């Protein structure tokens, strides 16, 4: 074999391997989503959304408490996390633009985005659950909000930075104070991007389990009281999947299906908006 031939064959082998790698990646995606879909749809029924759980081991019952609890916790987390994140991002991109402190907070947020969520759970346990003496929905919501803040903050900062500086100068020239420029000009220009960031951050926390395990805990009864332990879909999935009953496993699949679809739809919408707004 000549050297040219060996080089060509080597190239073909390497390119085939990389194609295989892509197929492996797609294979996992299809495998996992397909599995959740098949098991989830089979276990899905209207009673799941309208009934509360049956006593352990007895067939029937639903997860109404967990659906409502999950919505409540996520909603409260959004109400705390989004304003803090958006305002924080505004500071970095506007008032502190180009300063060392902005760079530092930005880097710290990037690190916080990836800090293990279970550590946030232990932190909230120490500062909220322990002093109040009991698990509560609020503790769970605060834990999720803490996870949201750096995510929203970083996307807001990036989106505001994309708004051309000349646009602000035009508004300054009309004599507008900076806060009015930000609220009426800059936010409007970056609205689609900021909203996308918010959607993606909701998708991120809606699937979190670890920080809820010892903050909002679990509750097998229907409750909308955020001062008490409250059920969430993800913690229920954990409990049911690890439990011994077949009916629990089926409900865990159904709940996983709902959570996964919710998150995938949010993520896909977010990506489409980004593509539509900023794509080539």
């Amino acid at each position: 074999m000549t050297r040219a031939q060996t080089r060509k064959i080597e190239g073909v082998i390497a390119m085939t391997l990389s194609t295989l790698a892509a197929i492996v990646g797609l294979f996992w995606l299809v495998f996992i989503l397909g599995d959740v879909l098949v098991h989830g749809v089979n276990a899905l029924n209207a009673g799941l959304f309208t009934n509360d759980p049956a006593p352990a081991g007895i067939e029937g019952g639903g997860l109404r408490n967990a659906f409502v609890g999950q919505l409540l916790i996520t909603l409260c987390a959004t109400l705390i996390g989004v304003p803090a994140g958006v305002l924080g991002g505004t500071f970095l991109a506007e008032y502190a633009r180009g300063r060392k402190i902005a760079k530092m907070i930005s880097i710290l947020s990037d690190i916080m985005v990836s800090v293990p969520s279970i550590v946030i759970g232990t932190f909230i346990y120490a500062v909220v659950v322990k002093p109040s003496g009991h698990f509560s929905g609020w503790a769970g919501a605060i834990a999720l909000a803490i996870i949201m803040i750096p995510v929203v903050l970083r996307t807001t900062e990036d989106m505001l930075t994309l708004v051309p500086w000349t646009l602000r100068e035009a508004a300054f020239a009309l004599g507008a104070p900076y806060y009015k420029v930000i609220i009426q000009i800059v936010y409007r220009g970056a609205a689609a991007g900021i909203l996308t960031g918010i959607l993606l951050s909701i998708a991120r926390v809606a699937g979190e389990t670890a920080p809820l395990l010892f903050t909002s805990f679990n509750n097998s009864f229907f409750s909308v009281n955020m001062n008490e332990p409250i059920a969430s879909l993800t913690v229920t999935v954990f409990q049911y999947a690890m439990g011994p009953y077949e009916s629990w496993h089926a409900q865990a699949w159904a709940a996983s299906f709902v959570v996964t679809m919710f998150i995938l739809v949010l993520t896909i919408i977010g990506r489409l908006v980004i593509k539509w707004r900023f794509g080539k």
Partner: protein
Amino acid sequence: MPLLYKKNPADIVFSSVTAIASFSVIVLVIGIFYVLVSESSLAIERFGITKFLASTDWDPVRGSFGALTNIYGTVLTTFLSLLIAIPVAIGIAIFVTEVSPDFLKGPISAAIELLAAIPSIIYGMWGLFTLSPIMSNHIEPFLKKITAGIPFVSILFEGTPMGIDILTASVILSIMIIPFTASISRDCFNLTPSIVKESAYAIGATKWEVVKNVVIPYSKLGVFGGIVLSLGRAIGETMAVAFVLGNNHRITTSLLDAAATITVTLANEFAEADNDIYLSSLFYLALVLFVMSFITLAIAKYFLLKAGKKYSR
């Protein structure tokens, strides 16, 4: 930077509100560190630092705790998952940037990134009900058979294949981190100036030689950053491994044994800790995890920033 806003009272209010919001990130980082240290002070006093990190004890009954079995589990699963994930992720990045036809590039990248959006609890449940039986019935017996008789390697696959073990957990972790490594590597590969690649093609290099000798050397800093970032993610992953790792506080040499990582121990035992020293030791573990992942992520960020500076030049 115009400092106009100082002149308007409403601006002073608005800028302070935004400043407080963004400083909350600093407060949180320091607050988490401080709270974890103060909550674990009892265990720090009792066990010290080196003794806690080096002890394999985990005995809630006698109140004697050490972190080594948990750290061992975390390091081992993370290492194995990177070993599986890196070649696949780099392969995907090469495919998307160099091999794939243009119309497939977008959809394939998007699909791989969707993997990252699936919540970790879904990975965990899928691992428990679907992957674990496959591992224990097919893959693990097969690995045992082909490694039997090979010295040292066969030690890794001793014991009965149960499917609830280090190997299964590492496979799930590797699937979870593929999208991170793949998308960062792809972005870095894309930043290679085409003029450099074209010069290599002009002197007769094949596509693979361009990737191997031009693209990868040019983007290695960013790719390395991406790998370290995935490492940081894998260290802190909880739910995906909690289902399939068992909760076994022993140091095992076989990959077919159950083990415990820091995160799994926290998830399983935190709500059940019934005395102060137990709870305090768990906080201590959380502190170790926080410090480990913070340092890893900071290193990743350092390399990614350095890479960013290099490419923007």
